[in-house]
């Protein structure tokens, strides 16, 4: 497609309000497809809109790699969309909001829902680390290590394009080392 040397599908996931839609908008070459709707659950997260279907964006990198960017809804009731969107994904970016009291539990939950990094490479982006009472970045890596998982973990602000690109670049490296044949496929 579009003459790219290689093309990857990657998925942004994580709990409601963590910034999946924001992250895709921050890096997509074109205005992303959005399925955000009126949010009636202000207790879960106080914002006007929430993603009910999916986010979709696209980015062409300097080396000729094209990346299709999919975002999931965050709430567990949309779990069926996680499975649909996760299908044939080359890699997954799990975003976590450190200011939420259950951030570490959410980390386990989303990493497990997308195969714990065993089927598909996973990179973790943790946001709002400066929030009072948020666990330090180390706590997230350690949480994974206690379960025998070694996944890259970065502190990010998803509103900043370089932060999101760092997650994508890291994921692409993991994808390529995990399966070198993909590069030429």
């Amino acid at each position, binding site marked *: 497609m579009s003459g790219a040397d290689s093309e990857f599908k990657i998925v942004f996931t994580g709990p409601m309000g963590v910034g999946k839609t924001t992250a895709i908008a921050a890096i997509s070459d074109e205005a992303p497809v959005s399925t955000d*709707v*009126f949010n*009636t659950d202000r207790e879960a997260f106080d914002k006007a809109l929430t993603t009910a279907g999916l986010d979709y964006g696209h980015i062409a990198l300097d080396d000729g790699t094209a990346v299709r960017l999919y975002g999931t809804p965050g709430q567990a009731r949309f779990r069926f969309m996680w499975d649909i969107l996760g299908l044939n994904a080359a890699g997954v970016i799990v975003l976590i909001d450190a200011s939420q009291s259950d951030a570490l539990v959410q980390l386990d939950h989303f990493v497990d829902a997308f195969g714990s990094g065993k089927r598909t490479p996973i990179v973790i982006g943790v946001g709002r680390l400066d929030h009072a009472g948020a666990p330090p970045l180390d706590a997230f890596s350690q949480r994974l290590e206690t379960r025998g998982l070694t996944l890259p973990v970065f502190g990010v602000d998803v509103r900043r394009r370089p932060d999101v690109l760092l997650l994508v670049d890291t994921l692409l490296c993991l994808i390529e080392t995990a399966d070198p044949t993909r590069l030429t496929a």
Partner: protein
Amino acid sequence: MSAAPRFGKVATGVAQKQLEAFGQSTPGVVSAVLLSADGFEVASLQVGKSGAERLAAMGSSLGAIGSAIAKEAGIVECNRMIIEADSGTVVIMHVPDAKPPMSLAIVANGASVLGQLLWAARNCCSAIGRAFRE
């Protein structure tokens, strides 16, 4: 986790009655769920709690994706979405002017006639929309 109180007791009661009347007067209706755009059950007909929750979430995803595709195609408003199979039909219909935004998801079997189903569903949605106009 029931979200019902968020949607107003009186309007929800009206919607429930409308759904029951719709189910009784329309051949082939298997079940129906009135859902908020973000996927919560508001009222339901002939479906258990977990089934209603699932249909509400799936209906909202479908509605949101349908609207995005319509927008992409340059069609402004997506009023309804129809999934047809040999053994039945699923319709997701937008409830006009409801606050908060809502849709009605209907599952019908082979005894239904599409035109009749859509006509009855539209009347039902109009009545529900009036109840949720504050």
